[in-house]
């Protein structure tokens, strides 16, 4: 029912955020397919740009998690790419960012939450992974558990709050200042969108790297 742009499939109500997400997925899929149709060893301009993006993301992930970076790369890279596009979608007149919807940011945060445990258990085993909650002292176990939930909640709320407030602020400034303000606001919007996407993805990367390498860090200590 949000902003009147939604439809129902049986008992399911498809919100505007989901529709926008599908649109973003479609664009990303087409872009990915078109840009990787004719990959060569001697790249052209488009291939160079695409390779540069992927290589930059890969290097950033490997810098944080050198040993298991390739395992978590698809998840983190997809987060960065999706969030960047999703945050910038609101620049197109008539569209809204899916990330101004708490359901969307919560879904992503929950995915990060489960991914942390999934990759942690996958790389270390269940016993070793759970053991890290008891280090350096079992007394800290409740705090570890609380931390897991609060940081997931913080992820969802941070992104949602920033994007929603950004759109609201932009709308208010447009109402007050008319047509003189849009360009600086748009610039601010772009920067904020990129920063928020980067923060969300980087925090997710740090959480994942921490879960994967916790046993290693403990053994080193």
């Amino acid at each position: 029912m949000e902003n009147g742009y939604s439809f129902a499939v049986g008992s399911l109500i498809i919100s505007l955020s989901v529709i926008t997400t599908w649109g973003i997925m479609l664009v990303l899929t087409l872009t990915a397919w078109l840009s990787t149709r004719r990959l060569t060893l001697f790249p052209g301009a488009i291939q160079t740009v695409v390779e540069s993006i992927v290589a930059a993301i890969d290097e950033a992930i490997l810098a944080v998690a050198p040993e298991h970076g390739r395992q978590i790369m698809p998840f983190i890279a997809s987060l960065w790419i999706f969030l960047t596009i999703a945050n910038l979608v609101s620049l197109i007149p008539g569209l809204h960012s899916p990330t101004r919807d708490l359901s969307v940011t919560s879904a992503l945060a929950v995915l990060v939450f489960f991914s942390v445990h999934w990759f942690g258990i996958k790389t270390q085993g269940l016993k070793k992974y759970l053991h890290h909650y008891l280090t350096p002292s079992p007394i800290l176990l409740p705090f570890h558990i609380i931390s897991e939930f609060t940081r997931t909640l913080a992820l969802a709320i941070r992104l949602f709050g920033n994007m929603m407030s950004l759109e609201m602020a932009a709308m208010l400034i447009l109402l007050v200042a008319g047509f003189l303000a849009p360009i600086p606001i748009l610039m601010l919007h772009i920067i904020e969108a990129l920063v928020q996407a980067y923060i969300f993805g980087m925090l997710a990367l740090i959480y994942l790297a921490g879960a994967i390498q916790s046993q290693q860090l403990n053994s080193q200590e």
Partner: protein
Amino acid sequence: MEFNTTTFILEIINFLVLIWILQRLFYKPILGTIAKRKQHIDQSLEEAKKLHDEAEEQRKLYENRQQLWEQEKKAAQSELHQQFEAERSTQLEKLRSELEQERQKAKVTLTRQQEEFQQQVEKQALENGARFAGLLLQQTAGPEVENRLVAMLIDELNALPETAKISFQATDTKKSLNVKVTSAYPLTTDLVQQLEQKLGQLITRPMSFQYQQDSALIAGIRIDIGAWVLHANVGQELAGFAEIAYESE
């Protein structure tokens, strides 16, 4: 700000699907291409390194060969130098020998030329001496000298060896013998008598004497007795003196 469960669940599914799509269509091909390129570059670098190593090996091999060639060249040069030295010594020795021979020849030739020159000079001196003596005697000679020469001839006829006397006796005793007496000055009657008497003692056959004068004799006489000629004159003595020079050559 309301939370929609359907949206929440669909977004989770959407994102998982998006990860799968991007992994299949985007990350995997691009990372694969980058890996291939890296592999290609590594392979090229490896080939370049291999080529570099081969080139280095070839260079070392070439340097070793060049060093060997240099040693062989030096050895060949040394051998050639020794051969040259030996050949040069041989040729030099040969040349020295030839020069010595030439020098000896030149020395002999020079000595011979000097001897010839000396002989020629001596001969010339003798001839000059004879001519000067002739001129001097022509001016100083006179009848007295001639008389003394005739007297000397008569004395020498007395002192002739027996073999010479026998040769005069062996001639034909019946046939008359012409005796031609040539003098530079007219002979005195006394000398003529002594001369005929002395020749009559030596020659037993009849003789016809014929007297004449010849200034070329300078002083003295010449007696022609058939095949025999007796000289007792200055001109003949000077000629004989010159002939000695000729014979000595």
